[in-house]
């Protein structure tokens, strides 16, 4: 029986805590008697018969007819699926999306459906490489659909193939892929790794246009998103749900299949990362030391290659299909069952280790903007109720924050770092002054549409993702980062954790309370 998450009060006998430091990790001794550590729940058991569970969900959907009843000969069927930003790290093959889509295709074949398109719901993310598509969909689907041009990736800039569905009460225009809009049935194959994913968000961001996304991916909306992991208090999700209503009334019939994963993230020999430090065996300690020292001694490129080659042994904990909002409520129950940890009260200082990966750098480099996005956007938002850190408190992150960018995946990030950040780090100001220039840049548009680059506007969105955290925190300190780069982000560099706590004392006093968010794995703090 997996143990639930819990909050540990640090005393003198507590061992040093594990912190991510990009592609490596460190152990940090946290002050006794004023620090608490939030440990995530252990991974829930997975479903043994995954294919059977998926088939059962398709045949017994929620608030919709069974899938076979919706499939008729001569119809237009479109299957959309999440891109490589899920799961993180990538899961071992076979991927859940492959399983769902194969189950759907088998029913479609039995029903005599010929007109089937598969669309990777990228939004403004980079196009996936062929090997990534193969990983997500499996060789069978890739080899059957890709050569015929029936498997392709959404293009949010292809206005000839985008279609306006309608407008919300608040004037938000819903514009999505024409193929999706004109389909008789759309099946969405989803992976819900965190509570932010899924629901109407899948389709209203995955196959939407830049114009459509800009209604909710903006500083005002994201500063009022409290939090990303709590859709009922998220301005972003409110906007998405309004758009979903428009889709429901005027758009195609959508049959959503949502799945949830447990948090069994690291295979052997990295499985010690998910263990509680005082439970590390001699083998775990030896593995930690060997891994840490080895990673320290290899070039950063090799370090990245090693870490990105990790494939997670995730297990599926639930699958539901049918009407999108109903399905999503069930999905959220499953996600919260895995992630929620009850926490009493806020803290003055929140510490967190930033890993080597975030949703915007699969197979790529965690550049400085993504460090900000991961820390203030994702990890800060891992709460329900109130943020873990009080308003005006200090956030301490550990990451090398090297000034390094993936020139193929993140071309506009480079210019954003060199041009926009020296001018301003205020999301509202950069939105007004710079966003349009990047969003409409022909070269970025070309790279997004034909290469493997994120959309030109994407660094802005990554920055806005952390807007709420940036606004909320009194100071952000990065331990172990490249000092000029950290300063460019508007943060304070520190060499060691003790230095960082000294710097934090200027803001929150010397006896400030400290909370450490223990990742991995993922958790959502339910702050009372």
């Amino acid at each position, binding site marked *: 029986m997996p143990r639930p998450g819990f909050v540990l009060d640090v005393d003198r006998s507590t061992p040093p805590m594990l912190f991510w430091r990009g592609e490596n990790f460190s152990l940090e001794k946290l002050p006794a008697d004023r620090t608490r550590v939030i440990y995530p729940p252990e991974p829930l058991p997975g479903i043994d018969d995954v294919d059977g569970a998926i088939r059962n969900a398709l045949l017994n959907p929620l608030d919709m007819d069974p899938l076979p009843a919706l499939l008729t000969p001569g119809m237009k069927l479109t299957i959309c699926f999440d891109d490589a930003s899920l799961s993180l790290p990538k899961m071992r093959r076979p991927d859940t999306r492959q399983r769902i889509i194969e189950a759907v295709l088998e029913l479609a074949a039995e*029903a005599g459906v010929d007109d089937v398109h598969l669309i990777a719901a990228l939004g403004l993310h980079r196009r996936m490489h062929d090997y990534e598509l193969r990983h997500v969909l499996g060789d069978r689907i890739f080899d059957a659909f890709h050569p015929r041009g029936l498997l392709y990736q959404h293009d949010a800039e292809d206005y000839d193939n985008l279609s306006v569905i309608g407008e919300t009460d608040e004037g938000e225009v819903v514009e999505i892929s024409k193929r999706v809009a004109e389909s008789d049935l759309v099946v969405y194959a989803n992976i819900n790794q965190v509570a932010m994913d899924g629901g109407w968000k899948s389709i209203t961001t995955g196959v939407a246009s830049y114009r459509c996304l800009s209604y909710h991916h903006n500083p005002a909306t994201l500063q009022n998103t409290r939090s990303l992991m709590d859709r009922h208090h998220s301005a972003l999700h409110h906007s998405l749900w309004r758009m979903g209503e428009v889709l429901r009334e005027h758009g195609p019939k959508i049959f959503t299949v949502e799945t949830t994963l447990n948090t069994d993230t690291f295979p052997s020999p990295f499985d010690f990362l998910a263990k509680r430090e005082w439970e590390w065996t001699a083998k775990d300690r030896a593995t930690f030391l060997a891994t840490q020292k080895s990673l320290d001694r290899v070039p950063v490129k090799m370090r990245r290659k090693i870490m990105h080659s990790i494939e997670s042994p995730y297990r599926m904990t639930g699958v539901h299909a049918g009407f999108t909002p109903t399905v999503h409520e069930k999905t959220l129950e499953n996600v919260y069952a895995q992630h929620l940890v009850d926490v009493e009260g806020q803290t003055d200082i929140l510490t967190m280790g930033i890993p080597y990966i975030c949703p915007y750098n699969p197979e790529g480099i965690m550049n400085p903007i993504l460090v900000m996005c991961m820390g203030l956007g994702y990890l800060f938002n891992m709460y329900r109720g109130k943020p873990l850190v009080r308003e005006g408190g200090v956030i301490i992150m550990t990451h090398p924050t090297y000034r390094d960018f993936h020139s193929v995946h993140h071309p506009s990030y480079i210019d954003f770092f060199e041009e926009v950040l020296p001018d301003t780090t205020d999301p509202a100001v950069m939105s007004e002054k710079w966003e349009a220039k990047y969003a409409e840049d022909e070269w970025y548009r070309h790279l997004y549409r034909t290469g493997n680059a994120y959309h030109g506007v994407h660094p802005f969105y990554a920055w806005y993702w952390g807007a709420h955290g940036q606004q909320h925190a009194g100071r952000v300190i990065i331990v172990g980062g490249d000092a000029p780069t950290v300063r460019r982000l508007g943060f304070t560099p520190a060499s060691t954790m003790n230095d960082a706590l000294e710097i934090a004392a200027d803001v929150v006093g010397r006896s400030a309370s400290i909370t450490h968010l223990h990742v991995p794995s993922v958790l959502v703090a339910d702050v009372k």
Partner: protein
Amino acid sequence: MAKKSLRRAQQLAGSAEQAVRAAATPLRNFGFPYRAPTVPRGVEVPAEITGLGAHYDTGWARRPVASFARGLITEGPIRLATRLLTNPEIVGHDRLADLARLDDPPALIFAPTHHSHFDTGLMIRAIPVVWRRDLVVAAAADYFFDKKWKAAISALSLNAIPIDREVTGRASSDLLAALIADGHSLVIYPEGGRSQDGWGQEFKGGAAYLSSKTGAPVVPVFIDGTGAIFGKGMKRPKPGRTKVVFGRPMLADDDESTRRFNARIERAVTTLGDEALTDYWTARQRAATGDNPPLTGPEFTGWRRDWALADRRKLGAAGKRRRQQRPWPDLG
């Protein structure tokens, strides 16, 4: 004196001639007891248990020393020969991933198509490691176990179990069922033997029967290309490429007879065959309408059947035979 010597020489010559004639005379000219006795009419002689054929005891081949030796043979000569001669592409392991992930993966019955002696070595290499360790192979008793040396080699190198092809032998099926119950996975060729003409044959019910009897899932497998590399009747192998496609494990439904289950296994392998030569979606669409090209080939006979076989092989892995490296001549 001279007469005496002459007579002596004549006697010796006569003896020698007699000895040569006796040596040259075929054994068949001698009767009982030099030959087996003839059986009087109306008398039935009980069959003698020879220890060969289906009665060959393979227990020794599953003992630790033999298993270790087999591990060396599998990882050495079989691996090398498979790589050099058949260059396989193995797909569909993901369909077995859920079972492979279990702490104690269940025994499986692999039911591949059969076109060549290379199929067994190929299967041993292609089956995921978790099942490879405890794998037994059902082999024709009349072919692999008719001589002691052949039986010993088959049992040692392939962990082969003799099985009657012509008669449904209870001993064979009981032994196989016991081995499966003991955790051994099994490779059994439902066609009963190698293809006669390059096309497949109808499936016999052995795999379905054993699955129903033991509860072990059947994994349909399609092997493409080995028939063109070393099919029945070929004098020497022609190296080429092969493809092994694993299907989803299948179990008989509650009220499904062995015959119907066998037909379902055959359909699954047929669909895999179509998938190997076309693609997943085309094969699924045709499976839904029952239009997958049959493994047994077209119904007509003669040259048109051979012609169709050539066309089919062009679609498959065997059509992509490795070309000889012929560099352009250096003309100075």
